[in-house]
């Protein structure tokens, strides 16, 4: 009997310990997620800014010491054709890739296993004053007149202030997140412009005007709107909203920032409606009655008493709605066209942070620069939403105190 009691007490203790542990579960997961995103991504800033395993070589008379990824891209895209543009002599730039060696030498001259290749590459580079050669490290050219350009690593500035996101460009992939960040903000901003008046209007209707029966009917419907999977919204946007936008504004394609904003607005509505409505319904009856007793109309009472009283709750609704819009992935991926360029208007294709991750992670080799850049995008998104959710928390805290 006594023994049994001890047994049970031990078992109870273990159960209680387990319960405590599971209470800490969400905190542990959050810490884990943030650690993982940063550790997987932070390596980007130790990665050389040109493709791994390759280097750039120039003739040693060239005065240029190093090139930024941006400049490298301009050279290899033939946007810049003279070294003068980068402070060198006025010599035409001659872009050289490995396979161009066959323009100078036959296969026989390079040796059986290409063992003469480094030497011959060195000869070519020594001869051409304006050359820039993009070569794999295993065939590093040998010669007196050859100079290897110092490779820098991707900098914080390249990443956060870069205006080009071209992760697959060779020789220097560009990881500028600015167009993606702005694209995300633009689409979310547009969504809020549409969803706020609509959502707050419906919240006022539900909390102040609707009868009990209407409320009971509408609330589950709004919940249902929140339950529809985002991929279904994306599909609906693709086959209905995009063609409508295209026709209405006479655009070449319907997949634009505006289309994304419309779909996101619909998706953010349930959050805005339910949080704002809760806040308004919490207005004490006494305050409303006092206002009405003073001769105010119902509408005056709403915008002079109810809305000011519910201000913090309404702000929380707005913030949470923005959070919903910023993080949404599939629907946006399907309807915004995904052009990674600096956004200039609502009628052009844009690409958001989540859509970029979803579209590109599958093709990025694990551990590579592209993979790391995408994890950092995830980290940016994570920080965005964390700030949003904490500020919503603080705003509604204020109401209670």
């Amino acid at each position, binding site marked *: 009997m006594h023994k049994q009691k001890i047994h049970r007490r031990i078992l109870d203790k273990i159960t209680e310990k387990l319960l405590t542990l599971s209470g800490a579960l969400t905190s542990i997961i959050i810490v884990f997620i943030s650690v993982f995103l940063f550790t997987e991504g932070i390596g980007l800033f130790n990665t050389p800014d040109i493709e791994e395993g390759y280097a750039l070589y120039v003739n040693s008379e060239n005065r240029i010491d190093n090139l930024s990824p941006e400049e490298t891209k301009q050279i290899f895209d033939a946007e810049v054709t003279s070294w003068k543009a980068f402070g060198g002599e006025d010599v035409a730039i001659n872009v050289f890739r490995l396979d161009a060696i066959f323009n100078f030498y036959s296969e026989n001259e390079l040796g059986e296993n290409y063992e003469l290749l480094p030497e011959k590459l060195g000869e070519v580079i020594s001869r051409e004053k304006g050359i820039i050669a993009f070569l794999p490290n295993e065939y590093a050219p040998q010669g007196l007149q050859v100079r290897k350009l110092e490779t820098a690593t991707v900098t914080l500035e390249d990443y956060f202030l870069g205006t080009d996101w071209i992760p697959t460009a060779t020789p220097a992939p560009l990881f500028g997140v600015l167009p993606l960040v702005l694209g995300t903000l633009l689409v979310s901003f547009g969504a809020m412009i549409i969803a706020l008046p609509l959502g707050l*209007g419906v919240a006022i209707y539900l909390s102040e005007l609707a009868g009990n029966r209407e409320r009971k009917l509408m609330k*589950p419907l709004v919940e249902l709107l929140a*339950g529809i999977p985002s991929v279904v919204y994306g599909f609906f946007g693709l086959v209905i909203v995009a063609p409508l936008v295209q026709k209405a504004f006479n655009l070449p394609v319907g997949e634009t920032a505006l289309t994304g904003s419309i779909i996101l607005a619909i998706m953010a509505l349930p959050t805005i409606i339910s949080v704002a409505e809760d806040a308004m319904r919490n207005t004490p009856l006494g305050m409303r009655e006092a206002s009405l007793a003073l001769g105010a109309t119902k509408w005056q009472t709403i915008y002079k008493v109810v809305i000011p009283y519910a201000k913090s709750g309404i702000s929380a609704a707005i913030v949470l709605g923005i*959070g919903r819009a910023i*993080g949404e992935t599939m629907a946006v991926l399907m309807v915004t066209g995904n052009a990674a360029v600096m956004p200039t208007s609502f009628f052009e294709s844009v690409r958001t942070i989540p859509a970029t*991750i979803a579209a590109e992670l599958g093709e990025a080799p694990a551990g590579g620069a592209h993979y790391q850049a995408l994890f950092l995008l995830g980290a940016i998104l994570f920080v965005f939403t964390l700030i949003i959710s904490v500020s919503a928390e603080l705003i509604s805290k204020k109401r209670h105190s």
Partner: protein
Amino acid sequence: MNKKVSQNIAFFIFKFFGVLVIGILFSIIGFIGYNGIQVISWEFLTEFPKEGMTSGGIFPAIVGTFYLVVGSLIFAFPLGVMSAIYTTEYAGKGWIVRIIRIMTNNLASIPSIVFGLFGMALFVNKLNFGDSILAGSLTLGLLVLPLIIRTSEEALLAVPQSYREGSLALGATKLQTIRRIVLPAAFGNIITGLILSIGRVSGETAPILFTVAAYFLPKLPSGIFDQAMALPYHLYVLATSGTDLEASRPMAYGTALVLILIVLIMNLIASFFRKKL
């Protein structure tokens, strides 16, 4: 008079907005429903996709989604309920509960694609599960955890304090009280949370993109380390990257309708459980 007019205008606008939002909901469901119902048949639900996904059915995607729902909830449901028991029954009302609640809210606000990244880094790569049902289920489980915790908490808080006091006064221990009194009383509402989670898990695409989802598989998965097809990812594929987009449209409508029906049915069952209490 003027006051009355502005009131009438304002109220008309709000009512119009209300109708508009409901109208949007019905037009989405109506559009998908109308186009989808013409595709859905017994064959559609029980056959494999055929001819480059332009005919046949979506059976493997249904099976895959079923596995993912079961897999994710097997581990998220008990953990979520335990976490809720801790915060409502043990932690009191101090700063610990506040931090836990803030963290749960934060977890709920993290975008689903971030869960996908995390799941890929941890489960697929670090723990070497590969693209598998196991990795996908764990990722989805983390995603629904906050939903389960929140609904379970509400369910437990709704149990009157007097039940607990009565049980304790009769000499029951705290755990006995929770097991025999509090949990049975909260059961219906806890199940509501579980059912809503089923709807949520079935519809999520971003977390499974890199952890489990396959474009097409010729046979059903045979174990937890296999890849699987899933309904939401299948719809994404049909809508954006099929071999012949126009020809696979009907399949897409059918898949979208099945997804909406799952959510609809889960919401109905959930509201039934909620009412019973």
